[in-house]
């Protein structure tokens, strides 16, 4: 193995990871230097470590024992949590990578052996995500020093590093396997394969979101500490077991589990190299969706839409269902609903006033965020293929209408589903359900129009890893405006108990919504016309 080639490759792959996701001038410059990762890691450990030490020293006496217990639990959990996090991040990075962006292609034509590539890639992934164990270690450092657990901390650090490499090796394994599966499974399974991939991706993203829910993470950490002993024969818990047995005062077991962990890491590395060598498919897979002879569509999809508008809508639906990097947008409603409902549970009393107070964050916010994101990204997601729309004889109104259709349809379905869920949980009066449904639908229209305006004003056509399809500022502005619009539309309903209104508050909300929608529709049409007059890619 050529060590210099491995080193150069890992540097290039790290730069590719850093620069592939950087968009702004500031981050594209300083933050794209691999050295910045070491600096961030060091800063995290020193700042959080010192802060943690200071806070513990000021903690009340009755808190000391539980804090010491918590610190031990954190130190034990660090290796396993690191491993799972790396695997999740790695999978998400793979999923959000457009098919056009294939940074690992060079291995196919440069004189680099599979083992050199795998080792280089593992080093690169480990280094890029090193902030994860650094963050966890930084949290554990202050208390560890205070309670005199420095040996346990050192062991946790070492095992965290081993776990980092195990996680990176697993990511490399997954890459090869998904590449292979894509090339053989999807070729045969066509549509069903695409549907399966989509469902799995959404499930994965929801799980990922749940992992970031504070409540779930704490119970997971607690459970993990207790569970590692019970499942000592499972290799992924060996690094944590090394720390746990040390904290329990054992002398031989930490060494044994540490050695086993290292052996497991090398075994995974060997397997990754073997799979890469044997199963990597360098050419893009050819997926056949049908063997039927061509039958032209020609049918208008929705009444009121002409052929061109229907064609764009059909194309956008296919884009949402077939592009692996688009699955995250489909996962948004599930992620939003699950995370918000998990944080808000239990919901409190079920009076009409409190129901409306709960409805705004729990119902309108997910609806608004989902619709505006789907809509804001609808123009930028055309990517380099935007020339097709530029050369098409389309009027701005046609494009706005067609692009608005998908977020509106999806938003309406999501609104109905969310409302059904709320009805089952709260069992509100039918009039409240009707009010919320009308309010939800008008917000869907407003957000879809707002999204097209923002998407046309701040498009990002670049096809990179985790493409946003809309600039950072556009996305920020769109989200803030979207939330403001939703609040404005819901205001009459929220304030109905405080203000005397001559008409039902929902009617006021709908009237406000209609005015906002008309203004946004006109602005979106003007902006699309401007965008279509001069290609930006």
């Amino acid at each position, binding site marked *: 193995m050529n060590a210099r080639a491995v080193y150069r490759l890992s540097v290039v792959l790290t730069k590719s990871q850093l620069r592939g996701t950087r968009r702004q001038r500031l981050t594209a410059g300083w933050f794209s230097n691999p050295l910045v990762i070491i600096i961030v890691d060091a800063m995290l450990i020193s700042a959080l470590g010192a802060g943690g030490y200071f806070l513990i020293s000021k903690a009340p006496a009755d808190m000391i024992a539980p804090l010491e217990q918590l610190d031990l639990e954190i130190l034990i959990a660090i290796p396993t949590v690191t491993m799972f996090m790396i695997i999740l991040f790695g999978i998400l990075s793979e999923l959000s990578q457009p098919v056009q962006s294939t940074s690992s292609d060079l291995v196919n034509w440069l004189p680099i052996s599979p083992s050199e590539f795998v080792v280089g890639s593992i080093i690169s992934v480990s280094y890029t995500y090193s902030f994860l164990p650094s963050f966890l270690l930084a949290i554990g450092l202050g208390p560890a020093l205070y309670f005199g657990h420095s040996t346990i901390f050192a062991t946790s650090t070492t095992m965290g590093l081993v776990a980092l490499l195990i996680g990176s090796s697993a990511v490399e394994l997954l890459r090869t396997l998904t590449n292979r599966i894509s090339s053989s499974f999807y070729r045969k399974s066509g549509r069903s394969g695409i549907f399966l991939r989509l469902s799995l991706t959404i499930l994965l993203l929801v799980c990922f979101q749940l992992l970031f829910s504070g409540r779930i993470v704490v119970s997971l950490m607690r459970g993990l500490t207790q569970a590692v002993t019970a499942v000592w024969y499972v290799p992924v818990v060996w690094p944590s077991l090394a720390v746990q047995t040390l904290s329990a005062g054992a002398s031989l077991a930490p060494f044994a589990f540490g050695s086993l962990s290292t052996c497991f890491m090398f075994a995974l590395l060997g397997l990754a190299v073997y799979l890469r060598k044997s199963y990597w498919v360098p050419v893009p*897979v050819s*997926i056949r969706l049908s063997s039927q002879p*061509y039958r032209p569509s*020609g049918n208008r999809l929705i009444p009121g839409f002409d052929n061109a508008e229907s064609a*764009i809508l059909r*194309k956008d639906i296919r884009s949402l269902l*077939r592009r692996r990097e688009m699955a995250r947008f489909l996962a948004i409603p599930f992620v939003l609903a699950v995370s918000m409902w998990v944080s808000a549970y239990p919901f409190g009393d079920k009076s009409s006033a409190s129901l409306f107070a709960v409805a705004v964050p729990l119902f309108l916010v997910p609806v608004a965020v989902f619709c505006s994101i789907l809509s804001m990204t609808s123009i930028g997601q055309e990517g380099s293929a935007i020339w097709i729309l530029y050369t*098409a*004889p389309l009027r701005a109104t046609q494009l706005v209408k067609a692009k608005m259709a998908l977020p509106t349809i999806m938003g309406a379905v999501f609104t109905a589903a969310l409302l059904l869920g709320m009805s089952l949980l709260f069992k509100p009066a039918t009039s409240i359900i009707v009010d919320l449904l009308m309010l939800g639908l008008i917000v869907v229209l407003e957000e879809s129009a707002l999204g097209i305006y923002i998407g046309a004003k701040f498009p990002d056509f670049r096809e990179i890893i985790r493409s946003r399809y809309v600039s950072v500022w556009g996305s920020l502005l769109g989200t803030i405006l979207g939330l403001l619009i939703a609040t404005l539309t819901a205001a009459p309903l929220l304030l109905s108990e405080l203000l005397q209104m001559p008409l039902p508050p929902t009617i006021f909300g709908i009237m406000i919504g209609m005015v906002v929608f008309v203004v946004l529709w006109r602005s979106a049409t003007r902006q699309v016309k401007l965008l279509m007059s001069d290609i930006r890619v």
Partner: protein
Amino acid sequence: MATVDVKRISKSYGGRQAVSDVSFSLQSREVLGLLGPNGSGKSTIMKTVSGIIKPDSGDIQILGTDVVKQPVEVKKRIGYVPEAPRIYEFLTGVEYLDFVADIHELEKNEKQERISEFLRALDLEGRENDLIHGYSQGMKQKLAIIAALLHRPHLLVLDEPLNALDPRSARIVKDLIHKLRDDGVPTIFSTHVLEIAEAICDRVIIMYEGRIIAEGTTQDLKTKAGSAGSTLEEVFLKLTGTSDTQEIVEALSR
């Protein structure tokens, strides 16, 4: 009346002048070749003529319609193929063509007939239900060419259309360009391959650094360059001041 009438157009990107004060016209029953080294402004002219980008100044009339003022009307009558076309990779070949035909409001029967005919002619039959993601560059190029021809355009704007095509398909496209020209559908055509320009184009424009440095039939250009017996390649290299190739080859082979 000329099919294309370009008067004194200029276009810059940031501080870089891509096209400077360019004028030319194109008659029906004519194939016009745009030649020039990389970065000479050919693609910018193609995009400007097609209404994809707006010139900073100047006037472009296509079939009597102002491109800047009525781009949609012009786009209905143009067939455009960009250099290295990027096509929606999540669609199948036939879904993409169906999409383009719908955008151009083709009738159902006409659409079916023309798509099937073109797929057969350019050897894409049998692969039309595969996702474009799995297509080779040549197959994507064929799709882009079919998409440009589906709606029976009145003008073709083709930026390096023969790139990556197999010899049979290239021959079909070349013959089709001539047939359409004879039927009154002119073509603006850009290429780096001078033999192709010589074989296809009735008239050529040589561009260099955003300006037209020569215009005429290939014979005219050879005469103007004072080398009537030379190839178009020799004339091109002489006119663009890039004829120092021998020295470069010497240096590289050392």
